[in-house]
């Protein structure tokens, strides 16, 4: 089984969000970046589990400039076989997907497992885009992935529940919670990661969108307190003042 796992780096959820350059750029000063949680915990770990059972390799691929290599090394320390870095800042989903496709198209991967979404730009786009470029099946919001008789059996979210589907390989899966349990890299993994192969390739992808400006979400005005004994008052406020019931 040859598996490709696209990984991204994102600001830690607790990071303070601010913008510079007339609200056109995200201010990265003092922001701690992490591997995108769904990529690290679910996509990568499930890929490793499948390879541990079926044999094969897990390649991680990341589009980003050189200082992202620490995140790639972390993925290698967790257990990925080798890594690729596309040497360019990621600017839009199509551009990243196109670059990953260009790298992957002639390497006959059986599976591409992405995370469900990046927690910064919240897209859920790249997996589906890679699948369409390759013209293969795709399942997103996947909470279970097994390889059975040469096919992928996947649980995906639907409204109010789950659907279990079977799709042929090769395919693209976007992983979310439920698929695997987080793995913490151990010392052996961290040491081993230093000597694993990390290939750098150039970016050829083009962007179809651009962010023209950012705005912070409006702050809530002060919370109005209601006494716990007086739920009639809360209902009245929700009806008359907030007009939501």
């Amino acid at each position, binding site marked *: 089984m040859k598996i490709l796992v696209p990984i991204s780096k994102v600001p830690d959820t607790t990071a303070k969000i601010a913008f510079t350059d007339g609200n056109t750029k995200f201010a990265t000063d003092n922001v701690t970046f992490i591997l995108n949680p769904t990529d690290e915990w679910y996509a990568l770990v499930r890929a490793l589990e499948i390879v541990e059972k079926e044999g094969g390799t897990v390649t991680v691929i990341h589009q980003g400039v050189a200082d992202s290599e620490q995140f790639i090394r972390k993925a290698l320390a967790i257990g990925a076989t080798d890594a690729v870095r596309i040497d360019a800042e990621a600017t839009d989903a199509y551009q990243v997907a196109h670059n990953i496709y260009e790298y992957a198209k002639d390497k006959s991967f059986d599976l591409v497992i992405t995370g469900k979404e990046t927690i910064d730009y919240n897209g859920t786009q790249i997996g589906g885009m890679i699948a369409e470029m390759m013209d293969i099946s795709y399942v997103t919001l996947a909470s279970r992935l097994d390889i059975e008789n040469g096919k992928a059996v996947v649980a995906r979210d639907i409204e109010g529940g789950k659907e279990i589907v079977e799709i042929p390989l090769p395919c693209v899966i976007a992983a979310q919670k439920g698929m695997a349990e987080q793995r913490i890299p151990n010392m052996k993994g961290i040491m081993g990661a230093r000597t694993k192969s990390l290939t750098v390739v150039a970016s050829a992808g083009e962007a179809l969108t651009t962010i023209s400006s950012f705005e912070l979400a409006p702050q809530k*005005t002060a919370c109005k307190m209601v006494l716990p004994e007086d739920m009639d008052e*809360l209902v009245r406020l929700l009806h008359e003042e907030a007009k939501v019931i």
Partner: protein
Amino acid sequence: MSVIVYIESNENRVKKTSIEAAFYAAETAKLLGTEAIAIALGTHDATELANLGNVGITKVLHDANTKFDQFDTRAITKAIVAASTSVNADVVVVSYNQNGKAIAPRVSVRMKAGMVAGATALPNTSAGFIVRKNVFSGKAMANVQILTEKKVIALTPNTLQKVVGVNTATIEAFSTGVSDADFTTVIKSVEKVTGTVSLTEAELVVSGGRGLKGPENWGPIEELAREMGAATACSRPVADVDWRPHHEHVGQTGFTIRPNLYIAAGISGAIQHLAGVNGSKVIVVINTDIEAPFFKAADYGVVGDAASVLPKLVEAYKKFKAASH
């Protein structure tokens, strides 16, 4: 030129998220001085489709091939793009729901159309074509400019206030030309709760966290939800220990929702939880701890024990309902 919207039905009713997307498509068409057309695939009720006229759709293209009833992202993408080509659509609108998240990026590639995932406002067409969306888990918004002639917009549910008229859309049988070989997804089983309001579509949501102390204490949450016609949700730890099913989990690793009203009982309001609910129009927080971070994100707060406050709220709501009917 035209705007096209992808329509889904569930048990013969057009999904609420699709009606919203149709309204969005019609409003976008108005901005562009053109018409909004719908594409419906598989089994649908004809009256329901015709009723899309109420939100401004002029025509519905319907490919009734029942193979489309199995959700296959590749086949559906081909079908949507075939329809878009036939009506010369420049903008494709889908809902940013579970299915739309899978479809929209594929359509974007197939049409080489720039995409906005999770739009929260109508496009601004005064200088280019700019669509707003939430970023950084709802802590900020980005205005995304689409640079291509063709555009794909995946609309966040519960974003716009719909204006409903009385018009009938014409329904036209349409063959998307998708062949049997294009369907490669086999549905093996479906585990679904029926008879409850779906979380992504819900306008009202009642949610519980660890402060409820155990699954046996969810009675008042469920009763309140039933009375209000609301969906139920929960925080992540509660789903992790199986007090509640996983499909109720909201937040950074769960669903993102934007109901009109979110009632949170016994939830601290951690940043990862807020990420999934901070787009709610009105938030009510019930918590014993006045220092709970959730109060900072709330519109109405009740400092008290959920075990006693929730039953009182159920009674108060029943009284209100009885008085207003």
